[in-house]
């Protein structure tokens, strides 16, 4: 029996015998975002995990501020910050096994970095250098995806292929609240559910799609409710509670790994910075809204838990900050070096073997560059 054949075939039968295929109740997501920090459940969480999450959160925040600073210095073309969303980014990275795959959007360089990617490589695209600065297979991180929601079917296909091959691999795909409106979101979730692919969809509901607030994006009770229509479980989690996100994602991944199929997770969080450095969020939201969220900062939440329960001391927190500073200093230094790009690389990877048409264009560019070099050698500019 093949994987596709395993599933109980559903055939429509005449109405008298017609029954819903499963009780819808278990598909209904949590009524309120699941929380762990500050609740009794926190005591059940491995303190080591909490400390690891904390260190990564501190590092992640520093990464965000450093990257934003680099845009001001013209060292990054653009940066969509995940400040305020670090709990989601970090938990997504830490919850995966080595063999699993991460499918980040443009906002999720931090998740890639927390998974082990060199920050400079993760920022290659946003620096204005080549589109993907890393071999996706090395850390099993798909290319940062810019066209909204299009990475979701990729994650489904990869997870499905792994399952067909008998590999114990789960894919985690990240997307924003706005992206859930795209057709590709729908198609991906449906394929995943029909194929029972081992994939988890993490929606970071940060309240906005650039300037468009969630109320103009959906009329659903929550984005997690979208799971119902695909016949998959939906979960709602406090996206600033790193322990809760880790737990909910962990359960979804375990479920997928065990052959239970996909889960949709909505993490409620907030984008503390503008959409990117090029955005002007004063145009569409009040400072007061942003301020209200500061009280619910993901680092502060976790820090309160750790200190309150004596799981970390001042030295431990200082160590986290130092590690973050070291990362930032290294990042700053390396980003301040101008990358050297070879213009001839324009033609290097369009096809396995360039077409004759491309070879002609390549020759033209080479001649131009040679002429330029000659022009430089020849300051009188006798040749153009």
């Amino acid at each position, binding site marked *: 029996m093949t994987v596709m054949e395993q599933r109980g075939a559903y055939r429509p039968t005449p109405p008298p015998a017609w029954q819903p295929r499963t009780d819808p109740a278990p598909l209904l997501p949590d009524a309120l975002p699941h929380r762990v920090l500050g609740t009794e459940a926190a005591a059940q969480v491995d303190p080591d995990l909490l400390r690891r999450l904390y260190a990564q959160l501190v590092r992640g925040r520093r990464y965000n501020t450093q990257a934003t600073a680099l845009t001001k210095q013209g060292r990054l073309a653009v940066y969509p910050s995940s400040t305020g969303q670090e709990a989601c980014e970090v938990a997504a990275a830490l919850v995966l096994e080595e063999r699993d795959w991460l499918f980040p959007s443009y906002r999720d360089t931090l998740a890639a970095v927390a998974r082990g990617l060199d920050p400079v490589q993760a920022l290659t695209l946003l620096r*204005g250098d080549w589109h993907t600065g890393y071999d996706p297979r090395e850390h099993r991180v798909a290319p940062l995806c810019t066209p909204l929601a299009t990475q979701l079917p990729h994650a489904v296909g990869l997870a499905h292929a792994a399952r067909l091959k008998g590999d114990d691999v789960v894919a985690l795909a990240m997307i924003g609240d706005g992206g859930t409106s795209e057709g590709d979101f729908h198609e991906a979730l449906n394929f995943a559910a029909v194929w029972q692919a081992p994939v988890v969809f993490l929606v970071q509901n940060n309240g906005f799609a*650039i300037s468009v607030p969630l109320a103009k994006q959906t009329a659903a009770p929550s984005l997690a409710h979208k799971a119902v229509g695909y016949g998959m479980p939906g979960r709602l989690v406090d996206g600033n509670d790193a322990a809760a996100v880790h737990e909910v994602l962990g359960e979804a991944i375990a479920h997928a790994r065990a052959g239970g199929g996909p889960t949709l997770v909505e993490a409620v969080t907030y984008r503390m910075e503008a959409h990117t450095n090029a955005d002007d969020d004063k145009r569409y939201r009040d400072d007061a809204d942003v301020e209200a969220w500061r009280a619910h900062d993901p680092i502060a939440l976790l820090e309160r838990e750790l200190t309150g329960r004596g799981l970390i001391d001042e030295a431990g927190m200082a160590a986290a900050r130092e590690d973050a500073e070291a990362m930032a200093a290294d990042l700053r230094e390396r980003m301040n070096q101008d990358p050297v790009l070879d213009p001839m690389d*324009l033609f290097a990877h369009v096809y396995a073997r360039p077409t004759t048409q491309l070879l002609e264009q390549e020759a033209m560019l080479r001649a131009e560059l040679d002429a330029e070099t000659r022009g430089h050698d020849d300051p009188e500019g006798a040749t153009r």
Partner: protein
Amino acid sequence: MTTVAVKPATMAQAFGRALRDAMAEDPTVHVMGEDVGALGGVFRVTDGLVKEFGEDRVTDTPLAEAGILGTAVGMAMYGLRPVVEMQFDAFAYPAFEQLISHVARWRNRTRGAMPLPITVRVPYGGGIGGVEHHSDSSEAYYIATPGLHVVTPATVADAYGLLRAAIASDDPVVVLEPKRLYWSKDAWNPDEPQAVEPIGRAVVRRRGRSATLITYGPSVPVCLEAAEAARAEGWDLEVVDLRSLVPFDDETVSASVRRTGRAVVVHESGSFGGPGGEIAARVTERCFHHLEAPVLRVAGFDIPYPPPMLERHHLPGVDRILDAVARLQWEARS
């Protein structure tokens, strides 16, 4: 007519003014898209419109391009004139089925009973240091789709005139807005009565006798610069700004090439299967015996749009244009 002192305006402002004036004149004109409301669009073209006309007429839609264009079809069926903004060239692709299978065919399908006066605004092209998917020149897709008009301005005044004409048209019009000219300025007085350009007329931007540069949109200023530089080499180049790709102004283009006997087509879009092939072919069909050399093309390479740090090597620049002019077989001139 007396010459009046005019303040310079940007092309983005001219597009915005065209939207405003069209909305003020015609209550059926609606603007819709991602972030067109409070934000004023990522290029600020729709700045201020929602304040003036309200959310019913300037609508931040859910984030779904097929949905935006598809609902615009229904709105047009009911008598509205939707102006749809696609945020960037590459983000119009999800709407292609609606565009090709419906928007372009609706009038024909209904035997003229139901025209769809939809304007689709698409910021296009590179040169702005944008990351992947933010710099595509996608005009080849639009011009190969019968039933669409496709226009692209190169001056501030044409931005106003062509967008007004597009909105006024009873047919769907794709307005390709050259991103890197959004902040270009012209002496243009928005408070003067403005010309609404008829769709389908090219214009000679610079007279010349040696050869014709046929171009449009973001490449027009580059060609004008090349024409200036060419004087040093002894070439007096004519520059034709097409303004409209569909319909195509064969008359103006052919007349120019018959005069000069040589032509180069210049655009950012990739060469293979791009508009340049069409233009070169139809110029050759019409002017064969006037041609001293084959019509050449200077275009983007046939590669996915490169990263910001390399885009200058990809984009047709002055030198590449002059190199092409140099290859127009001047030795053959008898």
